């Protein structure tokens, strides 16, 4: 007789592409169902085709509270055992501060920081009821160290660290854990297109002498999402080859 395991669902934002899709895939390997949220319907359809039936797609613009509310209602109505949220959706609008316009600042803060808050707030009751649930915020080493041209991005990612720690304290007594992962320099389409000199400069600053893989980030997220980290809350876990040590 087949024993039916308890269904547990993770909500992942920015899930249709890049690291978000790899996080979804990794969580599914751990037995999670994934409610994947993304602003792009087309990208979600492709992700559903690639990841299969354990992945359900929901169109969501994290920066828009109405869009978040609508998607979260759909998710909570259709998915069982929601006990994890991964706030991964993020954008960059890199520019030197002297050249940065208000829109470039606002957009990055709205998606990366306020967006995470919007989704967290909309799902928090569900996560509180679930007990033994977890929230994983995708920050960045740039939020710890800074980087020229990324004042907006760094501020948003540092903001996520404060958000993680404050919320962690608010809900710790209810069995909801809140942690952050801070990826360093990771092999992505963006870093692949960097000039060789910039790439070498990056590598020279990393004690382990190599860029990370998106899978390395996904592994850290899976650890903080699941029961292996059940006594860990309020931490920022760098996945950076020693860059911030």
């Amino acid at each position, binding site marked *: 007789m087949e024993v039916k395991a308890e269904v547990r669902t993770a909500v992942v934002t920015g899930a249709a592409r890049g690291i978000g899709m790899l996080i979804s895939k990794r969580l599914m390997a751990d037995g999670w169902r994934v409610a994947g949220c993304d602003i792009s319907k087309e990208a979600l359809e492709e992700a559903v085709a690639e990841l299969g039936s354990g992945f359900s797609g929901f169109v969501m613009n994290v920066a828009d509270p109405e869009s978040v509310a609508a998607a979260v209602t759909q998710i909570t109505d259709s998915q069982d055992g929601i006990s994890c949220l991964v706030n991964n959706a993020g954008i960059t609008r890199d520019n030197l501060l002297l050249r940065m316009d208000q829109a470039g600042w606002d957009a990055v803060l709205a998606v990366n920081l306020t967006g995470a808050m919007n989704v967290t707030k909309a799902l928090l*009751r569900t996560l*509180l*009821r679930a007990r033994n649930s977890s929230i994983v915020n995708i920050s960045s080493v740039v939020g710890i160290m800074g980087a020229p041209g990324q004042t907006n991005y760094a501020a948003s990612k540092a903001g996520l660290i404060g958000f993680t720690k404050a919320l962690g304290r*608010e*809900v710790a*007594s*209810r069995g909801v854990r809140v942690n952050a992962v801070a990826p360093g320099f990771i092999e992505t389409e963006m870093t692949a297109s960097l000039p060789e000199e910039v790439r070498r400069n990056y590598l020279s600053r990393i004690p382990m002498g190599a860029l990370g893989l998106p899978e390395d980030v996904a592994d850290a997220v899976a650890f903080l999402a699941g029961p292996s980290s059940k006594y860990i809350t309020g931490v920022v876990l760098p996945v950076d080859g020693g860059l911030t040590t």
Partner: protein
Amino acid sequence: MSLENRVTEIIVNKLGVKAEEVTPEAHFVTDLGADSLDQVELMMDFEDAFDLKISDEEASKLQTVGAVIGFLESKGISV
């Protein structure tokens, strides 16, 4: 079961207090030992139990057991 009894039951389950402590005058924080998150969760439990929405503004006024019962009655809730 009366509305009063149902509300009492929810409060007892949530806060782990004795039913006889849950008098209409009992204040959630000063008499029943609720912290701020307990209060929010209590409102959530009432919302679930009685299938209604309690706004933050309304919730902030519901500091005693009697206030909750009065509020639910004003919404036409019965058990």
